[in-house]
């Protein structure tokens, strides 16, 4: 008897795939991918005198970005403050995540919940809370005066911006670190000790490499939104110096007239820089892993 080949039926499978995939995919292509194409297009057009866009192709927007001191320094300031924020969050967050993981199970749930609340609370609200503390007639100055010292300018400083950024981003660093440490097998630390490593060596050679995915995830999660932020530098820094996000916001909304092509070019360079930075970071951290 000749055996015949029986391949499972496939046409209905394909129909099902596209029925499931179609709506969401089309939506994202229109309302996510296409807008990105539009700003790429805008970045090569000419700004009009009334804030409009003229259909004249040009490289001028990119040239302006790289020659104007204003823009370059804003890039540097944003990247620098983000790096600093990320690093400080990592420094504060790692020991805290470790503490949470090593605490008894019942406590762990509570401690984690206390991180989740700020994680999900409105960023604006949390930034605003610091305004109350740092205001000229605010809580901290009240404390300073009570100690007999003169009132300080705390709000509208770059220091305030940095504190606000760290405060805002810390939960986003802690959660991925927690997830990584939760997966870590702490018996390995005893094994390392048994083999003659001191605490510090065991941390550097065993725990840190094993939890690197959490470090990377947390750093990326903190770094990306911080580079583009403008709310914190606006509210706590008093918009005294320009960060990338402040300039972007101004170019699109406020400046008289707005300059969308230049803003688009700036956003695209921003994404490019971010991508490069993250690739370098991934390279660096995975190499440490080996």
């Amino acid at each position, binding site marked *: 008897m000749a055996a015949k080949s029986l391949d499972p039926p496939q046409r209905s*499978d394909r129909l099902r*795939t596209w*029925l*499931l*995939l179609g*709506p*969401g*995919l089309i939506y*994202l292509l229109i*309302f*996510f991918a*296409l*807008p990105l194409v*539009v*700003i790429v297009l805008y970045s090569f057009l000419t700004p009009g005198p009334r804030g409009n866009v003229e259909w004249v192709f040009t490289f001028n927007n990119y040239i302006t970005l790289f020659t104007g001191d204003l823009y370059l320094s804003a890039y540097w300031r944003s990247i620098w403050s983000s790096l600093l924020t990320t690093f400080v969050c990592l420094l*504060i967050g790692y*020991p*805290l995540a*470790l503490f949470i993981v*090593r*605490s008894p199970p019942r406590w*762990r749930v509570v401690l*984690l*919940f*206390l*991180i989740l609340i*700020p*994680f999900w*609370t*409105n*960023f*604006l*609200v*949390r930034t*605003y*809370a610091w*305004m*109350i503390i740092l205001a000229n*007639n605010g*809580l901290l100055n009240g404390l300073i005066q009570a100690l007999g010292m003169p009132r300080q300018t705390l709000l509208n400083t770059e220091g305030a911006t940095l504190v606000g950024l760290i*405060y805002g981003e*810390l939960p986003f660093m802690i*959660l991925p670190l927690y*997830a990584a440490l*939760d997966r870590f097998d*702490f018996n390995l630390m*005893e094994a390392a*000790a048994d083999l003659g490593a*001191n*605490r510090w060596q065991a941390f550097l050679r065993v725990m840190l490499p094993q939890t690197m995915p959490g470090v990377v995830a947390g750093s990326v999660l903190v770094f*990306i*939104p911080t580079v583009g*932020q*403008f709310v914190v530098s*606006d509210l706590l820094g008093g918009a005294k110096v320009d960060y990338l*996000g402040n300039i972007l916001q101004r170019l*699109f909304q406020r400046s008289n007239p707005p300059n*969308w092509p230049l803003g*688009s070019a700036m*956003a695209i360079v921003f994404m490019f820089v971010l991508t490069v930075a993250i690739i370098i970071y991934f390279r660096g951290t995975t190499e440490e892993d080996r």
Partner: protein
Amino acid sequence: MIEASSKTQARPTVRPGFRLGTISWGNWALGTHALLVYLFLYVPIAVLVLFSFTQDQFGTRWTGFTFDWYARLFSNDRLMGAALNTLYVALASTVASTVLGTLLAMAMERTRFRARPAVDGLLYLPIVIPEIVMALSLLAFFAFFFDIIEFVTGATLRRSLTTVTLAHIAFSISFVVVVVRTSLKNFDMRLEEAAADLGANGWKTFWRITFPLILPGIIGGALLAFTLSLDDFIISLFLSGPGTSLLPVEVYGRVKRAITPEINAISTLMLMLSMTLVFLSQVLQRRR
């Protein structure tokens, strides 16, 4: 985006005190550090809540207890209107992004197709892309297409709650997909086989077995989408039109002018809402 629940499996019992190579609960340095960090996280929140009840009209000193600011809030039509707008946008975008995201998650986990890696990448982009870039590109996109529509049909369209909602959907879909995919991954495929074995066809199997079991994941995704929309400031700022104010945008405008106890009060309410949502989603996770 991040699974907060920890595995509950037995862990080596933690011994108090110091041991080489062991970092234990009894380590006072870690404990002190943790205490300071939790203070850092919660003192500002506590101050905010406290000063929403102060009689001080600048809202930065304690001069006595009052409920006045909350009462004023509820009679402030502008703020109440903004709050209603925000809720409307959040509800609409939650429903749409939950439906679209769940379908996408099913497609990614349950079907095979060649473009899968590309779609996978596309789905992660909205999560990693800076929100401001997404907001600006949507702003440019709507302006661009409104111009085209005006040119072709003569009708003038403006940014409105609808544009914000459309943008929030685009932003939330990916987060819903991640959450629902996780629960589909944890779903035991043999349960579907068991249902088929007992005579249930594909449709019945989905509604009687698969759907009830991934429902907590779908609700989790919906809660996430709702929270994201409520909390969003940047996209709302750029995409809401003149005259259609949203709560975070309204608060931002006022805060830039001055600190007032009224803002303390509305911020406190927003905080409470967030806490409730986190609590709900945690309860949901633990029940599973």
